[in-house]
């Protein structure tokens, strides 16, 4: 069974390649379910499987480029992309990405890339965990308010920073038709430069920061922010894939293997959103993010305490793969149960007579376009 361990043709490191399928599958399930690309899981996961950090980033970005391109093409059909805004932001995204990638190459030369990227990930994962737990606690507060006060609570005003930023008098000021806003072009360029920098340095799409920044700093409506953000993710990922491939830091075979797993996982994850409601699983997601952060901390500890390196490395690998596995298994179980119940309910509602239905009366399988995402 030595063929299950291959020496990667470019990175030159031995990898248990079915682990890449499992990682891709888990990331696809979790990403499809939570509406995330899961880039934040892939780079640490690849690093823990044995890829050097620069290769982990390059391979992650390549995998993400393929997936986000398909997603943004689909979003464009719904008119959710402001192309003028997107094209202007490409300038900042590409410049920011290249700055990040050059810093990675420099850190690799001086031998500090692993430490720097892991610390960056610790900060990023802490931010995600904070967002998730804040969201859950907010939901609990809302429930309490609904229970105690009849007639509903006062409408939240939300953050209004974009009104100040849109008034910046830096020429040229442009009107973005789809987004319905007028602002200086330097505002979206600055936002995209920062998120492109994050993408280049951490191997993520940057959407985690970009989408809220588009909403709160630029004032883009949420659905346009999602579509335009995906367009930017596709651009930055494809540029990133080309950039890292040119620098010889992309393992294309590994990216293809992961894409197979991710494509299958995304089907399961996105369909499961139809069957699962409630914040319990989101809480578990927050715990998984914390676990991911702990596993990175263990990798940092492994580098600091060399006698215990094997134990820390093993613990980190078990923790991250275990967490992705457990979360993916829970979502898959809900998926199977949901499909079973749906088919059973459909059989029960159909007429008992075995008459063939006319095509018009067939109940169409619910396509993603038709289903609305339940609020979780």
């Amino acid at each position, binding site marked *: 069974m030595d063929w299950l361990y291959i020496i990667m043709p470019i990175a030159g490191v031995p990898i248990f390649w079915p682990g890449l399928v499992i990682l891709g599958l888990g990331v696809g399930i979790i990403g499809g379910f939570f509406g995330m690309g899961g880039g934040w899981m892939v780079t640490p996961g690849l690093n823990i499987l044995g890829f050097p950090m620069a290769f982990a980033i390059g391979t992650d970005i390549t995998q993400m480029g393929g997936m986000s391109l398909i997603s943004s093409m689909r979003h464009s059909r719904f008119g959710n992309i402001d192309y003028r805004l997107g094209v202007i932001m490409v300038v900042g995204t590409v410049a920011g990405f290249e700055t990040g990638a050059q810093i990675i190459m420099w850190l690799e030369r001086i031998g500090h890339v692993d430490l720097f990227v892991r610390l960056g990930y610790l900060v990023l994962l802490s931010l995600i965990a904070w967002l998730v737990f804040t969201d859950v606690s907010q939901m609990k507060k809302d429930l309490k308010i609904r229970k105690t006060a009849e007639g509903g609570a006062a409408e939240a005003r939300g953050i209004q920073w974009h009104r100040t930023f849109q008034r910046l008098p830096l020429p040229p000021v442009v009107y973005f038709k789809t987004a319905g806003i007028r602002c200086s072009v330097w505002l979206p360029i600055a936002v995209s430069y920062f998120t492109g920098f994050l993408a280049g340095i951490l191997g993520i799409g940057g959407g985690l920061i970009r989408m809220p920044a588009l909403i709160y700093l630029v004032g883009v409506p949420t659905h346009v922010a999602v579509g335009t953000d995906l367009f930017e993710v596709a651009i930055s990922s494809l540029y990133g894939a080309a950039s890292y491939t040119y620098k010889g830091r992309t393992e294309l075979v590994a990216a293809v293997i992961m894409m197979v797993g991710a494509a299958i996982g995304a089907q399961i994850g996105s369909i499961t959103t139809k069957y699962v409601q409630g914040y319990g699983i989101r809480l578990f997601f927050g715990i998984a993010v914390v676990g991911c952060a702990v596993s990175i901390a263990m990798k940092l500890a492994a580098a600091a305490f060399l006698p215990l390196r094997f134990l820390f490395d093993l613990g980190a690998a078990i923790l991250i793969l275990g967490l992705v596995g457990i979360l993916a298994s829970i979502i898959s179980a809900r998926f199977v149960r949901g499909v079973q119940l749906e088919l059973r309910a459909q059989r029960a509602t159909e007429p008992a007579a075995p008459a063939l239905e006319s095509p018009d009366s067939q109940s169409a399988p619910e396509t993603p376009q038709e289903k609305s*995402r339940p609020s979780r």
Partner: protein
Amino acid sequence: MIACRGSQSQALRIWIVVLTDLAVIGELFLAMYLAHTRREQFTAVFAGVFFGLLIPTIALAKLLLRRLAPPEASGDPPEAVSPEGPMIQ
């Protein structure tokens, strides 16, 4: 258009998607095994075998799904990614 009961049609479509997924995984394992036997041309053998099998598999699955689809969704078989896609990368 294949006329059959709604739940049967949907179950059949689900089975086609599941079998396609399994076939793709099988093709991946076969490509990796064959590439492993010729290490000096690893990437070329892997790409040739995998994409050579993947493209006809996906084309066949799409064709079957289209034939089983109801008229209003005929151009749009059930797909893997949600309309929102990965909202956050």
